[in-house]
C-alpha cells in the first residue's frame, strides 16, 4: 500500500485508464499545458498527446456537448470542469442531452461519459465559487452521481466511472485534493458504483454522509468516544444510485440516524436519505432523524461568516447527542 493524496489517486486513475483504453480522452480548461487547474491531469498531455488531452476554450456548454457527441459516436470522454460552479453553463448538455439520450433514442445511444471536477466550498471563495452541486444532478434519472471522500475511493470510483456505459457526474473537492491522503492499493482495483461503505463501525448512531462530511463525521465520532457514544459512519460514496440497503441495515442496527452534508438543506441528498429511512426503517427509529447542513444562504466571503455557514465536526457531534437525547 502506498499513501497517496486524493489528487495523486485521481491522477493515477486517469493515467491507468487512458493506458488501458485508447478511446478515452480528456477535455477541459487548462487540462493540458497547464497540467490542470488543480493538477489532477498533471503529465497526461505529455504522455498521451493533444487529441487525448485537449485544452478547451472557456466554453463549458460547447465542450460538454462535444463530449456527449463523441460518446454517442463511440469514444469515452472525460469532461473536466475547472469547478462545478462553471458547469452550470453546461448543465443543459448534462441533463437534457447526456442523461436522456439512452431512453429518448429507445435504447440506441448510451452515453459513456464522465463529467468531473471539484465541488463544495474551499477557503473564502465567496458565493459563486462555494457550492455543492450534488442535488442538482442527483435529481436526474439517467445520471450516476459520485462524491468520494478518500484517496482510495477516489481512484477506485473514478476507474469505475470511466468504465461505466452511462453518464457519470464525479464530484471531487478542492479542499481534499491535498489534505486527504490515505492508503491506496498498488494492485489494480475498482470500487463499485452505488455501494456505500462503513468507514467506522459503531452501535449507537448512524451518521450518513459523503465527500468532505465523512471526515467531519469521523472527527465527531472520535470526540464522542469520550462520552461513550459509539458512532457508525456510513459513507454513501455514490449519491445516485443510492445504497438504501446499507443505510437501512445500519439504522436497523443503531436505531438512530444523523444525515450530514455540506450543501444547502432544501431538496438535498440528505432530504432523500431521511425519506428512505422513514419509508424503510421507521419502526427501527428511536428518535427523529437529525440533519446537518450548510446554512441556507449564499456563501459569504468574510472568514467569520463562512465559518458560521459551513457544517463541521462539532455540528455533527451536537446532532448525534440530540438523537441520543444526550444534549
Amino acid at each position, binding site marked *: 500500500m502506498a499513501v497517496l493524496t486524493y489528487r495523486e489517486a485521481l491522477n493515477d486513475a486517469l493515467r491507468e485508464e487512458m493506458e488501458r483504453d485508447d478511446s478515452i480522452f480528456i477535455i477541459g480548461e487548462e487540462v493540458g499545458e497547464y497540467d490542470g487547474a488543480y493538477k489532477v491531469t498533471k503529465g497526461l498531455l505529455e504522455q498521451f498527446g493533444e487529441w487525448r488531452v485537449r485544452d478547451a476554450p472557456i466554453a463549458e456548454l460547447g465542450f460538454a*456537448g462535444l463530449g456527449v457527441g463523441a460518446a454517442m459516436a463511440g469514444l469515452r470522454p472525460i469532461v473536466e470542469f475547472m469547478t462545478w460552479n462553471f458547469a452550470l453553463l453546461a448543465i443543459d448538455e448534462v441533463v437534457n442531452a447526456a442523461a436522456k439520450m439512452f431512453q429518448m433514442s429507445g435504447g440506441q445511444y448510451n452515453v459513456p461519459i464522465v463529467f468531473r471536477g471539484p465541488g463544495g466550498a474551499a477557503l473564502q471563495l465567496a458565493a459563486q465559487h462555494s457550492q455543492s452541486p450534488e442535488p442538482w444532478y442527483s435529481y436526474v434519472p439517467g445520471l*450516476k452521481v459520485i462524491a468520494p471522500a478518500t484517496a482510495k475511493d477516489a481512484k477506485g470510483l473514478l476507474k469505475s466511472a470511466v468504465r461505466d456505459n452511462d453518464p457519470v457526474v464525479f464530484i471531487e473537492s478542492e479542499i481534499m485534493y491535498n489534505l486527504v491522503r490515505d492508503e491506496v492499493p498498488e494492485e489494480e482495483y475498482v470500487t463499485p458504483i452505488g455501494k456505500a461503505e462503513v468507514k467506522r463501525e459503531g452501535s449507537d448512531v448512524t451518521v450518513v454522509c459523503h465527500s468532505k462530511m465523512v471526515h467531519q463525521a469521523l472527527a465527531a465520532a472520535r470526540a464522542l468516544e469520550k462520552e461513550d457514544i459509539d458512532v457508525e459512519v456510513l459513507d454513501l460514496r455514490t449519491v445516485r444510485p443510492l445504497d*438504501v440497503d446499507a443505510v437501512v441495515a445500519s439504522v436497523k442496527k443503531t436505531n438512530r440516524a444523523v444525515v450530514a452534508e455540506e450543501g444547502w438543506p432544501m431538496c438535498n441528498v440528505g432530504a432523500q436519505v431521511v425519506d428512505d429511512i422513514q419509508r*424503510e426503517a421507521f419502526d427501527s427509529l428511536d428518535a427523529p432523524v437529525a440533519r446537518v447542513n450548510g446554512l441556507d444562504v449564499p456563501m459569504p466571503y468574510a472568514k467569520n461568516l463562512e465559518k458560521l455557514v459551513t457544517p463541521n465536526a462539532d455540528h455533527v457531534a451536537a446532532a448525534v447527542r440530540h438523537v441520543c437525547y444526550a444534549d
Partner: protein
Amino acid sequence: MSAANADRSTATVSDAPAAGAPAEGSGRDPDAFLGLSKEECVELLREMIIERRFEEKAAEVYQVGKIGGFCHLYIGQEAVSAGSISPLRDDDYVVTAYRDHAQAIARGMTPNAVMAELYGRADGCSKGFGGSMHMFDKTLNFMGGHGIVGSHLPLAVGVGYTIRYRGGDQVCLCFFGDSVVNIGAFHESMNMAARWKLPVIFLLENNRYGMGTDFRRVAAVKELKDRGRAYDGLTSLDVDGMDVLAVRQAVEEAIERGRNEKTPSFIEARCFRYMGHSMADPMHGTYRTREEVEKWRSDDPILSFTRQLMDAGRLTEEEYQAIDREAKEIAEESAAFADRSPFPDSDALYRYVYSDGYPDDMRRRDAWRKELR
C-alpha cells in the same frame, strides 16, 4: 462554377434579400444537373415528394388526435433535406433539431418507422420514447432529433472530433434553424470546429422565422451566413434552399472540404416553411402575411424541380403522376402501419434509463405505484 456564394473574408453586410429571391451566386447551369443521371434526378424528386406527402399525412392524423405533443412539419423545405443528405455516404453522420421527420426519411428510415414514432408506438424508430422531436436510428448514423434549440450543435462537433480522433474521412451533417445563430452554443461550436479542423457541415435552414420571430428582428446581422466570418478555416456561404440541386452542389463541395481538408463549413440555405411553426400554430399567424406565404409557395421546390426535369426531357407527366401516387400510398401505409403497431409495454419504462439496469433504490421509491410492483 460554384453553386454557392462562398466567402471566408470578403463578404460585407448588405440588405437581406427580399422574400423569395434566390440567394446570390446561384450561378449553376440549370441544364447540367450536376452530372446526375436521369434516374438520380428522379430519385431526388421522388424523395422530396415522399417527404411532402408524409408530412401532409402527419398533419391530417394529428388533427384527429393520432399524434400527441409538438409536431413540427417540414413542408416547403424538402429541397434542403433531399439535396444535403443524398450526397452523404452511409458511414457519415447526421444530427438535427426537432423538425426532423423528413430528414429521417431522407437518411433512409422507413416512413413506417417514423410515423409509428409519431404515434408513440413500439415499432417507432425510437420505440415510442422520442416522438416527433426525437427520431434516432443508430444503424443509419442518424443521431437525433434534439429539442433544445442549438444544443445539438456541440454534439455534432463531438462527432467531428471523433472522426478526426480515429483518422476517418467521414463528415457530420448538422441541421438547425435560423434562431440558432444567436445562441452561445452556435459560436462555441463553430469556434471549436474551426480551431481543431473538424469535418462538420453546419447547415442552417433559414426559413426566416424562429417560431414567430422574423430573424431580422432579433439578429444584429443582415445576412446570417456572415456569422461564420469570425472563424478562420470555416467556409461560410449561402445557397437557394428552394433549389435541390443548388443545395446538393453546395453540400457536395462541403463534403469534399470535410473529407480532404478536414475543415468545417457553414451553409445558410434560404428556404421557407409553409405550415406554422408547429401544428399548434396557424399557417399565417400574426407574424407573417398570407402574401408572403403565397410568394414562397410559388417558388415551390418540388414544382420547380419537376418543371426543370420535364423541360429537360428527364421526366414525363405520367412518371410524375406515378411517383406522386406512390408517395401518397407510402404515406397512407405508414399511418396504417402506425395504427397497427402496439403501444410500448409498461415494462419498457425502466429499460432505457441506464444501460446496466434500473437501480433497486429507484425502483423502491416507485413502489407506491402498485400497478408497477
